[in-house]
């Protein structure tokens, strides 16, 4: 049994979550407060990964970034980026695939805050950016935590997208979920069991932690 798939899985989840956090805050802010007519379309696109079979997403990624078409070739030639069957490709696909899990909690956290908090800050002379940083984000900490953890856990658990765009290259794109499938195919139930048990317990612990923190059960241990 190799540890590589597990390490790769958590590395992928970590990188994906970090990118998602940076990306989702402005996106969620825009979705929460903008009154532009385009908004429902963007909202729909963000939510699509929730309902779309992962293989569909993976298939389109595969088509789009294949070095055989112009766009894929362009990226390869000019930036040296190969998204097909590579780790960056996995990250990119995961970011799209887990986007709603980060955006939705932050968006509903932001729109749940009374408008008067923002307005009070503006009237004190603070810009929208400073207000976001000093007033809004600190007051949606539970939503941020939920977003971070759900994205992380969801990325750990993905299979279809990863299989389509990443393939099954040991050490590069073979994440735990694919390794389990492989081992079962090869009738190595023991190894599959170890991978599964580790994934099961780690995701269980992570989710448990979120519910404990957001439910206020750990309050007495800090502050």
């Amino acid at each position, binding site marked *: 049994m190799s540890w590589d798939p597990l390490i790769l899985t958590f590395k992928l989840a970590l990188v994906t979550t970090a990118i998602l956090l940076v990306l989702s805050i402005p996106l969620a802010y825009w979705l929460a407060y903008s009154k532009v007519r385009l908004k429902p379309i963007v909202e729909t696109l963000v939510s699509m990964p929730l309902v779309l079979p992962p293989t569909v997403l993976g298939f389109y990624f595969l088509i789009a970034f294949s070095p055989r078409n112009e766009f894929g070739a362009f990226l390869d030639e000019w930036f040296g980026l190969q998204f097909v069957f590579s780790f960056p490709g996995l990250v990119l696909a995961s970011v799209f695939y887990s986007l709603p899990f980060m955006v939705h909690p932050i968006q509903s956290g932001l729109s749940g805050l009374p408008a008067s*908090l923002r307005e009070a800050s503006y009237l004190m002379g603070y810009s929208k950016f400073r207000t976001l940083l000093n007033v809004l984000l600190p007051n949606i900490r539970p939503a941020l935590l939920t977003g971070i953890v759900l994205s992380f856990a969801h990325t750990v658990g993905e299979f279809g997208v990863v299989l389509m765009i990443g393939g099954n290259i040991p050490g590069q794109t073979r994440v735990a979920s694919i390794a389990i499938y492989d081992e079962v195919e090869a009738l190595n139930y023991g190894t599959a069991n170890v991978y599964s048990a580790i994934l099961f317990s780690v995701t269980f612990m992570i989710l448990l932690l979120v519910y404990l923190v957001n439910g206020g059960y750990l309050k007495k241990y800090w502050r």
Partner: protein
Amino acid sequence: MIGCRVEKDLNASGGGIHLSLNLDIPKGALVTLYGKSGVGKTSALRILAGLLTPDTGTIVVNGKVWFDAEKKINLKPQQRKIGFVFQDYALFPNMTVRQNLEYGGGRQSDPLLVDSLMDMVALKDLQGRLPATLSGGQKQRVALARALVQKPDILLLDEPLSALDMGIRAKLQDDILRVHREFGLTTLLISHNLGEIYRLSDRVIMMEGGKVVKEATADELFADRDISGKFKFTGEVVRIEEAEILFIVHVLIQNQVVKVVSRASEIEGLQIGDTVLVASKAFNPVLYKLG
């Protein structure tokens, strides 16, 4: 001096109204906006604060143009130097009382001013507390103090005391009056409570259906000046007791409670907290020299 002549279509829930404001408020005045809910009082404050943009018109404050629809001038809320006390207080839940005040001072918060303001509204003992742990009256005091740290020219209060009970309200009315005078503010207040309006305001602006329908002193607007009784006071009903075939109504006038005997038919619809005019003939009371 605030000169505000603006129009705006408001799509309020339950049908839109057309807001048409024509206000002239002298510097240093304490003015109450009075009227039923949904007539555009809060919108008027929000327009002054820059949180709501009018469709047409101008706002000029102390000779400076804040808004001019034609010239496309619209000062941001950040540039207007306005202290705003929101109806829900809008205290930042992540900051302590002291941090709320410090943040309220903007980028160059003055710690001395923060201290003196906290003294002024008796918040010193609460400075390390988070807003969630404060009572309504305490939150209100924090909101008032916080609105003043940036030394605004104009103070806007949106129904600041409506959620508080009577005893606390009286104390906070004092606070509002005091800061209004000490800071030389021009203050606009929304209130439904006649006692409060009498106590606080120099002028009352009465609004109906998005328009200013009357502007006068509280006395001119509310007191039935046509009754000839010379012994007249406005007060607040604090208790109604039955006494045989009559009722005894306790009325708080200033800080004294007086009792008035009434018939059931006269007090129909009268509730605790209502503002009433107590009138009698000047021939009736007797005087005793005190001291």
